[in-house]
């Protein structure tokens, strides 16, 4: 071995070692996953699959052995076509993905506004979620625990125990018109796990909901915009107010997802107090003005 070979060998070894140590990732790695995904023109399960593909797969959010709560909106005694409740096929597809990713159990529940048995049945979520392998249970009155909120207005509120004890939460709201908050999306959907007199949240709604949501943020928010309700919300009841958009919005940041969903209704953030308040209070994970959104149109 001469000096030249020695130097070459050492150099190559060092470079190789350095590369080995760092892994080859930096050279071939995909760009970081987007902060939010907007998929349109598909059936619920297709929309979800495409969105998760862009997001880097469900395993980014769900680990093997997790206890997962999937929280749809099934608060109203309405059939799916009235767009008052989350699309049952989407809920079933989300459950399937979680179980495929190795989740131990997937729980589905909602504290409904109409009679709970009727809501669970007529939203078709109970039947389809159960078929997909989830544990669908009625709210048990003694399973609410008082949780310290220590917010600006709300100091304490009761929250459903199963929700608090879950390893991961996937929030699956439907995009709907709402007269008080203008629209109801991810942030308002979390009211379905709250106990107590929820009507009390309605004055100073924006501040109270941001107070509470700050302490119970989900791992992933999937906004169902397969059908949206454009008026007479949140109950609906008139098919003329239902718009079929065949769209889905997904983000690990609940505020970013809600912010994006305002586009569905052609609203500006200034018009929607609750999103505005959330941004003002810094509840968002990402800068919504420079949000990295991946938009996909299925064919």
């Amino acid at each position, binding site marked *: 071995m001469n000096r030249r070979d020695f130097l070459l060998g050492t150099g190559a070894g060092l470079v190789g070692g350095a590369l080995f140590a760092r892994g080859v990732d930096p050279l071939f790695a995909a760009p970081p996953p987007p902060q939010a995904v907007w998929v349109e023109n598909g059936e619920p399960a297709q929309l979800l699959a495409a969105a998760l593909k862009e997001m880097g797969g469900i395993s980014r959010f769900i680990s093997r052995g997790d206890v997962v709560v999937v929280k749809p909106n099934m608060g109203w005694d309405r059939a799916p076509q009235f767009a008052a409740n989350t699309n049952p096929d989407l809920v079933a597809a989300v459950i399937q993905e979680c179980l495929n990713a190795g989740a131990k159990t997937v729980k589905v529940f909602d504290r409904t506004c109409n*009679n709970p048995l*009727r809501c669970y049945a007529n939203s078709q979520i109970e039947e389809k979620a159960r078929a997909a392998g989830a544990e669908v249970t009625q709210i048990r009155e003694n399973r609410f625990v008082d949780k310290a909120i220590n917010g600006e207005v709300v100091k304490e509120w009761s929250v459903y125990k199963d929700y608090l004890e879950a390893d991961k939460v996937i929030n699956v709201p439907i995009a709907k018109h709402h*007269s008080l908050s203008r629209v109801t999306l991810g942030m308002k959907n979390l009211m379905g796990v709250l106990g107590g007199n929820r009507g009390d949240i309605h004055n100073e709604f924006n501040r109270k909901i941001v107070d509470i949501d700050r302490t119970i943020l989900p791992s992933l928010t999937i906004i169902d915009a397969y059908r949206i309700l454009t008026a007479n919300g*949140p*109950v609906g009841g008139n098919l003329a107010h239902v718009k079929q958009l065949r769209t889905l919005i997904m983000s690990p940041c609940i505020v970013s997802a809600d912010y994006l969903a305002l586009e569905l209704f052609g609203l500006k953030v200034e018009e929607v107090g609750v999103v505005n308040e959330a941004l003002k209070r810094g509840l968002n994970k990402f800068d919504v003005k420079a949000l990295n959104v991946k938009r996909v149109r299925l064919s």
Partner: protein
Amino acid sequence: MKLRRVVQVGFLAFFVILFLIARYPYSGKLEADLFLRFSPLIPLFHFIQDLSLSWVLWPALAILVLTPFLGRFFCGWVCPLGTTIDAASKIVTSPSNRVSGKWEKLRFFKFALLFACILLAIFSVHVWGYLDPLSIFNRALTVVFYPLGSFFVSQTLLATTKVPFLETPAFYVYDLFKGFVMPEMQAHPQQFFWIALFIGAILGAEKLSRRFWCRNICPAGAWLGVLAQFRMFERIVGEACPVCNKCQTECKMNAIPAGDVKHTSKVECIDCFSCGAVCPPKIDAITYRWRWKPYHTPIDFTRRQFVRTTAGGAVALGMLSVGLKNRDEKNRQVRPPGALPEDQFADKCIRCQECVRICASNGGCLQPDGIRTTVLDLWLPVALMREGYCEYNCNLCGQICPTDAILPLTLEEKQHTAMGLAHFDKNLCIPYAQNSDCIVCEEHCPTPDKAIKFDLKEVRLRDGNAKMVKYPYVLRELCIGCGICETKCPLPGQAGIVVTTENQHRAGAPAPPQQEQPTSPYG
């Protein structure tokens, strides 16, 4: 007598099963009100009311046809109240007829009651429903036994879940219980105390004698007794009878005269066949057989009693007609959708609480009413919207009403039948009283075009600042009075929006004229 007991328990179980299926989801394949239509009183009083009979009462008609031949078999074999009374007599240990024979003088009272009920019914005052045995039993199940039983079971199981190692099994049992026995929420009926007292008195009277209610008070028993005077299925006592009087002292109904064990009062006997069972086995003097020339037993109702009852009935009629009806409460008598006009409704309703039962598994607005404007309001179903609301997609109360006091409406019809009208109480309503947003009522309003709308108006506060507030109002032509606004109003006590009977549309009555209203009170 094993067979009789099996049949009795079978009918009781059938009644309870029908009671349990009277809830959402309700298929109607097995009609939950079927057993209530067994009541022999309903055809009698409906005939007095309408001079016609409806085929839906076929179970009762079948009993009425069989009774002249078989006697009061309904009381001994079928009636679930009778079975429950028999069970109660085991618990409180009723005395034999040697002691309780002294109550025989009260026997006439059931005929007096029946006759007084008929008298009042002829003058179109219907009080018999309160005393109908099937109605009494269903009322007790709905208001007392089921809520009490389900409360104890569910609370015990929930308490057990707090024990760490029992949590999983207790929740498993709890889920089974909630899945099959009590899927709906805990019912909290009003009038609980009075209805419990009523059924408690009937069962407690077993301490005085066996079947005290059936012997002395039940008007259905009296009516069947009237039909059974000549019954052809007779008890025959053979020559071997040593007159040991065992059958006489053990008779549930005291139907065997003390000095004459060879005869039976056909009016009182309920076909329980205990007499044959207690007859000493070596003697076995008692047989039962058909006779085409039956003997007749008279009804224990003297002419003097008849005259007195007539007088008493007239006094009752006068009292019920003359007494002041409290007008203040009139507009809070919100009735179920499909209810007949108020007078007919009160006449047809037998206060069985079947609608209250099925409503408890839905919106839960129906409750047995108290004495609101007059005594006869007692236990009529009333919609208390602060406690529950009429579920927009539910029309079950009309489907299970045994007497059609509430007519069955299609869901479409029901969604357009106004039970009443919501009114804001602006002294309480949060936006008006506190200048603060709320509109929970508007959020829940279920009509496809919301009957509650709001104006966004600027209000100048005392500190000089201006604020935008949403002020809600009701559109009369859209409101169906379902009351979810009143139920969900977040105020702690009295609601800021109240449903009254205004604008209500009763079944069979022309729809109230729609008034032209400005779209907004603020123009």
